[in-house]
């Protein structure tokens, strides 16, 4: 700045900056003092912060600060505390029978909550949120169970899985009648028509042809009844679903039923025994059971025709032609 640009404004008594634009001069107005002091206070606070807290990146890590504050360590500690807090409940879950869990609202709530979170992390990918299932992946919320819906059945399925490679896995295999040329195309068509007559929902939607169904009835008795039963109510011991109910694993349309007879599809569920401890498996079983389809452990009633009301009385296994007969294909 040139020497003689200093100028005192008469009105305010303040110095101007010496800048002038079209006759307008700028006052050299100082910052408000409260603002300035706040600014200095912030600088001081920052210096204090450097000393106390992690602040400066270094070539090899960073300055730790004398408080040694670490969010990572805090989270680790919190997680540990959480596990410690949950431990007693899991202990109780280990010790309790399912009956005790059901009769202890607090424990049941804990089991359900723990199960829900595990379900979300591990099961939801296939079975869907809330166990709603989708084509090829059975719904866990309905009253249809391929392998049984009591707490013990559910627990066992979780432990060993289905076609999982586990030595105790639940196993079933429906023959691929079309792919392996076990039946002719005409026979498959007839069998399809017959199967469509069995389920109320399929009957209503697909209007199966009566003459074809009549021909298919014989084929069914020959090829399918061994697993699905002469009355097509299925057999839980073999994981063979009932074909007489309204729930279909792969869909109850003509196309899907036919495709199932042709290909004999069957899904795989992993064994979870090694992933979860006993308490966790129980929590998961309680959650799945509580989705709505759980069956009472009481003396299993004899297979009833589908259409009986209420929660899952029928041992009708799910959904359509999924897993069926054991190894030997359709040996009559």
């Amino acid at each position: 700045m040139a020497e003689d640009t200093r100028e005192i404004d008469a009105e305010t008594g303040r110095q101007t900056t010496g800048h002038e634009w079209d006759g307008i001069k700028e006052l050299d107005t100082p910052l408000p003092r409260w603002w300035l002091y706040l600014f200095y206070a912030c600088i001081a606070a920052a210096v204090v912060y450097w000393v106390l807290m992690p602040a400066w990146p270094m070539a090899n890590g960073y300055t730790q600060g004398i408080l040694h504050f670490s969010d990572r360590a805090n989270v680790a500690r919190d997680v540990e505390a959480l596990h410690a807090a949950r431990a007693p409940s899991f202990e109780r879950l280990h010790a309790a029978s399912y009956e005790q869990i059901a009769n202890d609202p607090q424990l049941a709530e804990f089991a359900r909550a723990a199960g829900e979170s595990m379900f979300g992390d591990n099961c939801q990918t296939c079975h869907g949120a809330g166990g709603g299932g989708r084509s090829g992946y059975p719904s866990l919320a309905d009253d249809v169970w391929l392998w049984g819906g009591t707490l013990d059945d559910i627990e066992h399925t979780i432990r060993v899985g289905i076609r999982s490679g586990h030595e105790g896995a639940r196993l079933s295999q429906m023959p691929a009648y079309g792919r392996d040329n076990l039946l002719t195309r005409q026979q498959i068509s007839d069998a399809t028509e017959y199967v469509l007559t069995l389920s109320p929902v399929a009957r209503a939607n697909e209007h199966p042809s009566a003459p074809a169904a009549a021909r298919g009835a014989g084929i069914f008795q020959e090829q399918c009844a061994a697993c699905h039963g002469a009355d097509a109510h299925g057999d839980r011991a073999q994981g063979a679903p009932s074909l007489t109910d309204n729930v279909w694993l792969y869909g109850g349309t003509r196309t899907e039923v036919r495709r199932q007879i042709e290909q004999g599809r069957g899904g795989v569920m992993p064994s979870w025994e090694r992933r979860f401890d006993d308490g966790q498996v129980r929590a998961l079983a309680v959650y799945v059971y509580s989705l709505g389809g759980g069956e009472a452990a009481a003396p299993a009633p004899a297979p009833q025709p589908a259409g009986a009301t209420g929660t899952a009385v029928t041992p009708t296994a799910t959904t359509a032609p999924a897993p069926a007969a054991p190894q030997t294909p359709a040996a009559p």
Partner: protein
Amino acid sequence: MTGKTTLLPRPQDDGHAIDAEAVNSAAARALYKKRAPIYPKLAHGRFRTLKWAAMIVLLAIYYVTPWIRWDRGPMGPDQAVLVDFAGRRFYFFFIELWPQEVYYITGLLILAAVGIFLSSALFGRVWCGYACPQTVWTDLYIYVERLIEGDRAARMRLAKAPMSAEKLGKKSAKHALWLLIAAATGGAWVFYFGDAPTLLREIFTGTASVEIYLFVGLLTFTTYTLAGTMREQVCTYMCPWPRIQAAMIDKDALSVTYRRDRGEPRAPHKKGQSWDGRGDCIDCRQCVAVCPQGIDIRDGDQLECINCGLCIDACDEIMAKVDRPKGLIAYDAHENRLRRALGLKTRYRFVRPRTILYGVIFAAIAVAMSYALINRQTLSLDAMRDRSPPYVRLANGDVRNGYTVRIINKERRIRPVEISLHGLDGARLAAFGHETTPDNAIALDARADAVTTIRITVTAPQQVGPPHPIAFVIEDAGTGEAGRREAVFVAGGAR
């Protein structure tokens, strides 16, 4: 004082006059100006007494309330007024509010707003002058200041005096006392949020949480600065209410008014002199000296004026001494200035459309809130339908929907309740871990003063169609108190 303006030498006038200048007088206004310190003189009179009374009552309410005990049985806190953030409850004597009932607080805030409108329309800014915490604590701080340093003249002398042992002692004592009051204020504040006796013990034994010390410290700081060092600047520069007051005050609202018609022309007066051809104002400036805002009420209505009436007291005292009628400065309506000028009789209209409207709104909200509070449900439920899966088709073709039901029991006892369903033919209820009664209801115990969550499934032979409206009904098996919650039952679209 600004230092820029000096009072002209004044003729002798019986010693009533005082060297006081309004901080916002036209002569003292500058673009850049440091705050001119104000040394309010002690006033004596009706309004000063009223202010003392208001101060004592309001401070007593503030400091004492957290210590009032209230028996709520073994499960509840025994503090009459408690904001329990951790437990998510607000206790006020016999009332216990849950977070979702925060609308009562909203109602209270609306009442407060309408109340301040109403009081402004009737009596001007009496809230500012008597009840505002800023005013009350400032008054208390000035009282302490006066106690230690003396009244106006002594305080001004002390301020001008060079530093000495006496000055240092007085200043230290004042600030120490101020800080003590500030700490007590911050302390009392935290007592509203926890058990007061426990907190007090913890604070003094150093075992209270960091947050407690933080808030005590914060409020100590704000009380000390706002009431001790900032004072009238808070009202003039920080508070929005002075800006709003213009909209609330009309020509009929009372405000502290200098009766220009009676006072002018002002001039000093000597005993025995004639009052002919002059006003009653003897220009003694006592009204300026007592003003905690440092203004001259004779300049008319001002942003800074908090309507506290201390200038009225000061002026009345002088008027009595010079043997003129009181009320040269008084609570008066603007309308009356005009009416006097026109030679009309003064009139005070407290009942007018504005005040009626404010009054009606105030009463309506108060009645609505009281009604809601008296008829407050202590038992209710929420029902949230599962979103995934939206519905489940069962083997026999029936449809099942799942609902997460939250039972809200606001009483401090376990209550046996029954949940039933209305509006869906053939529906059957089931809940994991609970029996379904023969008449198709779920019976369970609702936890005391808590939310009980259960998952209820509803199964019905429902055909495909649009969502079907249903309602969950909860009933206390003992008292018969019932609650209801609408929901829908979904059976899905195709297949």
